């Protein structure tokens, strides 16, 4: 097995690793501009697709590396926590989060990133998250039956479709790529000024690559004296 269980190295060292990963994650979020609610909300209008591209790329890359490590025996997939599926709770929670995301312009992680840079909207969003968590904790017993309804346990796509994991991984990667193409097309249609219209395949792309790699030389200054 690979050395992925950092807490087995010792709690101080393990927590230190988590801390460093957290710093790196926050640094990357902020440097990518994900602490700005306008950038985050823009993905819902197909105006700014940075978040969609980054998150989907991260998801697919992590999925590929995780299952590759599992295939070669470096990682025990059953050690990975997979949230249990409760259909009713997942649908309702997803709706609430989606509405909150587009109204507030943040998801929980990016709201912390924004609050860390003292943006007022981020700070208030985080406060709202805390209040919401507290209210949920105090009230979940009233809806316990509904909350735990439609339980399907640790359900994954290969189990749901009855397909080998590798096939599902390939399908997910292909779907993500297709999703990028569709979102690009939507952006060009609705927000042409924001769209990146540079081609990335074909002869025009080769020409673009040529110009980027070998820019025209600056003309020499000729003395008029």
């Amino acid at each position, binding site marked *: *097995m690979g050395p992925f269980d950092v807490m087995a190295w010792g709690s101080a060292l393990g927590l230190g690793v988590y801390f460093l990963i957290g710093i790196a994650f926050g640094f990357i979020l902020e440097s990518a501009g994900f602490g700005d609610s306008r950038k985050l909300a823009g993905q819902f209008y197909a105006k700014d697709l940075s978040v969609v591209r980054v998150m989907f*790329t991260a998801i*697919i*890359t992590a999925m*590929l*590396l995780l*299952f*590759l490590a*599992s*295939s*070669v*025996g470096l990682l*025990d*997939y*059953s*050690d990975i*926590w*997979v*949230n*249990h599926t409760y259909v009713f709770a997942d649908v309702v929670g997803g709706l609430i989060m989606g509405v909150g995301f587009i109204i507030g312009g943040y*998801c*929980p*992680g*990016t*709201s*912390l990133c924004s609050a860390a840079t003292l943006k007022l909207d981020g700070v208030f969003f985080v406060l709202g998250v805390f209040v919401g968590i507290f209210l949920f904790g105090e009230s979940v017993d009233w809806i316990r039956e509904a909350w735990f309804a439609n*339980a*399907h*346990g*640790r*359900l994954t796509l290969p*189990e749901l479709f009855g397909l*080998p*994991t*590798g*096939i599902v*991984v*390939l399908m997910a*990667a*292909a779907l*993500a*790529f297709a999703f990028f193409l569709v979102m690009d097309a939507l952006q060009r249609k609705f927000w042409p000024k924001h769209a*990146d219209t*540079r*081609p*990335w*395949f074909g002869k025009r*792309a080769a020409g*673009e*690559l040529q110009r980027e790699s070998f820019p025209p030389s600056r003309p020499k200054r000729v003395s008029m004296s």
Partner: protein
Amino acid sequence: MKRWIPLAAGIWIGLGLVITALGQPDPEGLYELRKERYQPRLDERRAFVQPGELLHYMYETSVDLQLIDVRSERDFNLFHLLDSRRLNESELTGIARLEEKPQRLTILIGNGEAAAVRSWKQLTALKVPNVYVLEGGLNHWLDLFNEGRLSTPQPSSPNDPPQLDHLRHAFDQALGARHPDSRPPKTLLKQLSYEPRVQLKTKARKGGGCG
């Protein structure tokens, strides 16, 4: 950066094809990867529950007891423990998917120990907590209990070799759980001696989401 898209897509598809070709380890493969951690529990008999301890848990209401019978349907219909349910070894992954109840105690039951141990290895590799094997299987259970009473003399340990896994006892009719030994009376607990081996892991595995 856009010119990297075809390269990235190619890498994704390439990795996906490698993963498809290699496949994922099955529960037996997972067990072999972690054998040094799990095998001592079998070798030291810590994964086996004696009939007396199982009888105790059959009457213990604070513990969620799950009895899984991994025998053939024919043997199950002849005799099985009260409230046990029959599952094929291939259906065990369904338990693993739904499992995560920290108070649940799962006992695997075979005619002997061989099939139950195979199932134990599967469930243990899939991180199902609190899984044990009935020591000696139902052959030993039926050696110990006789029509709702204890046999005399009491067999102290299973007599069968580990690889024996067929039902040694004969039945005139298929009584299933209606047989008096499917759940012997609680009063027998006072006459039974056993070594308690169950250690319930009560802490649920938890994880987080992402934001």
